[in-house]
């Protein structure tokens, strides 16, 4: 058994007076892929955005309960959200490269954290692009605008940009929902490789994708965690009726 890296305990979240998460308790193991599935609006994005405290940016968002990262409650007083996000990276639904060169995109994080040494930056950029399986395609056009890349390339660039900060955890929020099947397959392969070095949490509305890439799966419904377990078990022997209805497409 691997160690628990992230653990949510009785996590409640409100947007204003609307409760979006209800008493979420689950533990995500280190260097494994945890998938979060569920119908849209059930709180998947909301939950994953709690893990790197992105919801801090949302006005009127209130959180109670605990979210432990490496044993520390990240909603405790002593935790700095900016520091936390260096360790917990995030890749979004819509590829969002900065309107800069490919190089500057990948170097953004290290530069923001104070790295100025050009050789060191070069090395990180190359490493990150190789790790995100993009180096072969963009290695000799690093000065080109990231905006000129295809959607799938842009998403892999966003992954490279995240890797460059050397996080321990990577959160993916439906990273393939804007991509074609071939680009999707490349990202899935990538996730399968990355899990050797990173703890991964991925939100997906694509059941096959959850089945293909994840070790554990959590099924959310209306802000509640219905069921959490080994992916194989969630898909083949779910305990709850609603889980089975959802994974077999008989939902609603």
């Amino acid at each position, binding site marked *: 058994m691997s160690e628990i890296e992230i653990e949510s305990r009785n996590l409640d979240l409100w947007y204003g007076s609307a409760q979006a998460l209800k008493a979420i308790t689950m533990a995500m193991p280190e260097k494994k892929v945890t998938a979060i599935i569920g119908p849209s609006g059930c709180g998947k994005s909301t939950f994953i955005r709690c893990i790197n405290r992105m919801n801090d*940016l949302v006005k009127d968002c209130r959180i109670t309960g605990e979210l432990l990262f490496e044993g520390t409650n990240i909603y405790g007083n002593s935790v700095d959200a*900016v520091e936390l996000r260096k360790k917990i990276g995030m890749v979004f639904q819509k590829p969002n490269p900065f309107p800069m060169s490919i190089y500057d995109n990948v170097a953004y994080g290290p530069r923001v954290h104070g790295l100025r040494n050009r050789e060191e930056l070069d090395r990180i950029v190359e490493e990150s692009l190789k790790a995100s399986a993009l180096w072969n395609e963009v290695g000799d056009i690093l000065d080109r605008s990231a905006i000129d890349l295809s959607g799938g390339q842009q998403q892999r660039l966003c992954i490279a940009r995240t890797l460059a*900060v050397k996080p321990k955890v990577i959160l993916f929020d439906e990273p393939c929902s804007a991509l074609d099947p071939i680009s999707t397959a490349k990202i899935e392969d990538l996730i399968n490789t990355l899990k050797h070095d990173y703890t991964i949490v991925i939100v997906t509305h694509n059941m096959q994708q959850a089945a293909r890439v994840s070790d554990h799966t959590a099924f959310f419904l209306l802000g509640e965690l219905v069921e959490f377990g080994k992916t194989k078990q969630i898909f083949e022997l779910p305990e709850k009726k609603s889980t089975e209805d959802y994974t077999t497409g008989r939902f609603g």
Partner: protein
Amino acid sequence: MTPLISPSTSNRAAKVMLWVSASISILTLLFILGYIVVQGLSVLTLSFLLESPRLSGAEGGILPAIVGTFCLMLVTLLSAVPIGIGAAIYLAEYAHEGAVTRIISFGVECLAGIPSIVIGLFGYAFLAIYLGFGFSILSGGLALMFMILPWIVRVSEESLKAVPGGLREASFALGATKWQTVSRVVLPTAIPGITTGVILGIGKAIGETAVIMFTAGSSLLMPTSLFDPVRALPYHLYILASEGISDKMAYGSSVVLLVMVLVINLAAVAIQRHYGRHHVRN
């Protein structure tokens, strides 16, 4: 029952009427430009641009007025751009939507609505007399700054708000602070829009005679410092025409002023084109 006018007839009539409206607009513009250029052409020589005026401007050139105009624009730019962009960043990125932002935005709207003659009068009382800047480039430039500040705040705010939220999120998710996000991602992304707005604002300011005549003075001598008075081009042509000094020279000055405004507007268009791809260098 068939309608009085068939759809195809009304369709054709509408087309003709719209075409006529468009033509009138274009022709008016061409007529004004043509008239001024034709009237002013006879005095337009290199010496007109490069010499000082003689006999109150009835003879000679307009060099001091051109230089004065540029000096005013420079002071206006250097003061309005940092203040305007700073205010816009505060409004767009830092202030929470609420009473404070509404009051500031309302204030900016009000400032935009003040007639230029009133700004001129205020500039005279406050800058020239109270602060003791006298009739000078400094007074004139700062008064013009009051004039275009609301515009610069508004276009900058809009450009900043047009930056996709996903870019801010991406930056935060990489562990950047608010200021790093604003200064390294949001502002550079918005700069083409802001620059275009600033240039157009300067183009507007250049013609604000009412502000300039109360604050910058009417000296025809070459300025040597910020505290020297200057006579800006629009004011020069106003004096030439209204005091019956020389209509020809007034039209000549108009042509120069028009060309300056045209160049400024073309620069704005060029910048917009150039940054059409929204590519920022770090």
